[in-house]
């Protein structure tokens, strides 16, 4: 029972965040980069219900557009990680033997890097920016996606219906596309949910460090970084984007929760 309502609240938050991200241009009261230095650092009030930042930009508009930027990066990163990692994992799991061993050892090497270091290495080499951040986060997700896909393939490949398909002369591609992939979707879906949460938090960390989307783009991590200079004057500038990150990540985590666990 409890799992049901936490999940429902989480899905509600996600619908809201995705809706905000899509509808930002229509529902935001101001442009996200429109400066108005006369109205800088205004406290929350009429006209700007979350106040304004040091350039007089509307904080709520920046949060809304920030949702858009964050989700774009997170979805791109997870899609990249799942596409490459999934392909490696299914290949390794179906082929077995030395192919499997080589790929998994390679994945272990990538996993040997704490996530931020992969991102720092990528961004140091390629330069900062939203696109490179998405690439770096995607690269980090590849080995875990490969492991998930591999274990899905391993658990399925000895099942009767897969062996029957082989016996009927189905080729590897057909077995993969008609049997392994459809039966792995729920596992991959759960992985995608958890990964989206991780991607959002990593993206925030990268842009906080100045390695992600560059100003004046409204990125939640960068908003926290610039907000902390005005912490005493206007704490909302730091609080609001942090709460946005926390709610989004927690919602992804709760929504993709498996039934086992604490509940």
């Amino acid at each position: 029972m409890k799992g049901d309502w936490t999940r429902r609240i989480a899905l509600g938050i996600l619908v809201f965040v995705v809706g905000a991200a899509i509808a930002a241009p229509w529902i935001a009261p101001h442009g996200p980069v429109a400066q108005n230095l006369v109205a800088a650092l205004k406290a929350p009030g009429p006209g700007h219900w979350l106040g304004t930042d040091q350039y007089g930009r509307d904080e709520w508009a920046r949060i809304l557009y920030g949702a858009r930027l964050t989700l774009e990066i997170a979805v791109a990163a997870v899609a990249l990680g799942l596409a490459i990692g999934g392909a490696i994992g299914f290949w390794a799991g179906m082929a077995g033997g030395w192919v499997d061993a080589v790929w998994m050892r390679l994945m272990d090497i990538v996993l040997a890097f704490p996530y931020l270091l992969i991102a720092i290495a990528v961004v140091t080499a390629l330069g900062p920016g939203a696109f490179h951040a998405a690439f770096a986060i995607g690269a980090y997700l590849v080995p875990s996606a490969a492991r998930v896909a591999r274990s899905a393939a391993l658990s399925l490949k000895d099942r009767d219906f897969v062996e029957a398909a082989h016996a009927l002369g189905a080729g590897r591609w057909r077995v993969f596309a008609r049997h392994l992939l459809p039966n792995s979707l729920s596992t991959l879906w759960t992985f995608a949910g958890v990964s989206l949460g991780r991607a959002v938090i990593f993206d925030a960390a990268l842009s906080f460090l100045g390695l992600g989307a560059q100003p004046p783009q409204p990125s939640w991590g960068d908003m926290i970084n610039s907000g902390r200079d005005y912490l005493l004057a206007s704490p909302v500038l730091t609080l609001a984007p942090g709460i946005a990150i926390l709610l989004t990540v927690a919602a992804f985590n709760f929504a993709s929760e498996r039934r086992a666990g604490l509940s």
Partner: protein
Amino acid sequence: MARYLLGRLAWLVPTLLGIAFVTSSVLYLVPGDPAQILLGEMATPAQIQALRVQLHLNEGLWGRYVLYLGDTLHGDLGRSYVSQKPVTVAIAGALPETAELALTAWVLAAAGGSLLGVAAAARPGTWRGAVVTLASVTGFSVPVFWLGILLIYLFASVWHVLPTGGVGGIRHLLLPAVTLAVPSAGIIARFVADGMAGALGADFVRTAAAKGLPPWAIVWKHAFRNAIIPAVTVMGLQLGELLSGVVLVETVFAWPGLGRLLFNAIGQRDLLLIQGIVLLLAVTFVLVNLLVDVAYGMIDPRIRLA
């Protein structure tokens, strides 16, 4: 046990070689000439050429990798072009601070996470279990750098009970260590709770209860000792997460460790210093996980006796 250990050790070599390959190729992928970037606009062609030779930039990817490996094994990671100090000296200066912070946070995370996890599992289906679940998910969903800023705001700016940052005794260590520990504690709590839920349903727990053991003895002496085994692996992996978090937390708290050194090096494009710190942190992570696997093997009789 011996075979298990040998297998883990044999695997260490290719992993370390792979890590060195990734860090060495960072310099290879940088757009433009790294020597030019390091020396700046004013450098003469002769200076640039000298540095190119020193950094093996005239070699191909593989040649450079082999030479980089040789330099690294001789303890030569190059010089920071900002401070002109050898990278190894810069790292050695910052390492103790990071070790202190990360280890304190690790202990806090393991202890806090275990307590939370046991509390959640010992009272399944009650409001207490639900609160603990919420706390643990919130713990690993919160951005650490934001949590740090929030704690500074409350404890230093509003209540004036703790310093905003820097080093100097336990008062300075408290906030950054707690901040760094929170996400890991959340994850460890989940694994401990999962393990506890399984252990509390096992036959030996029913036997212990039938013997008339008090609940605390069942929970801690019987269930917890079994539940902790899978959680040990997670605690080891969490040190990797801590090494990522360290960059963020040290930046927020002006803690003079490797993380802040790395952050500053990124800002100044101090390529060799970045390369050196990334290499050290990745190698540390691998070695810690090796130690955890060995510890795991010693705790778990199924592996110890095999």
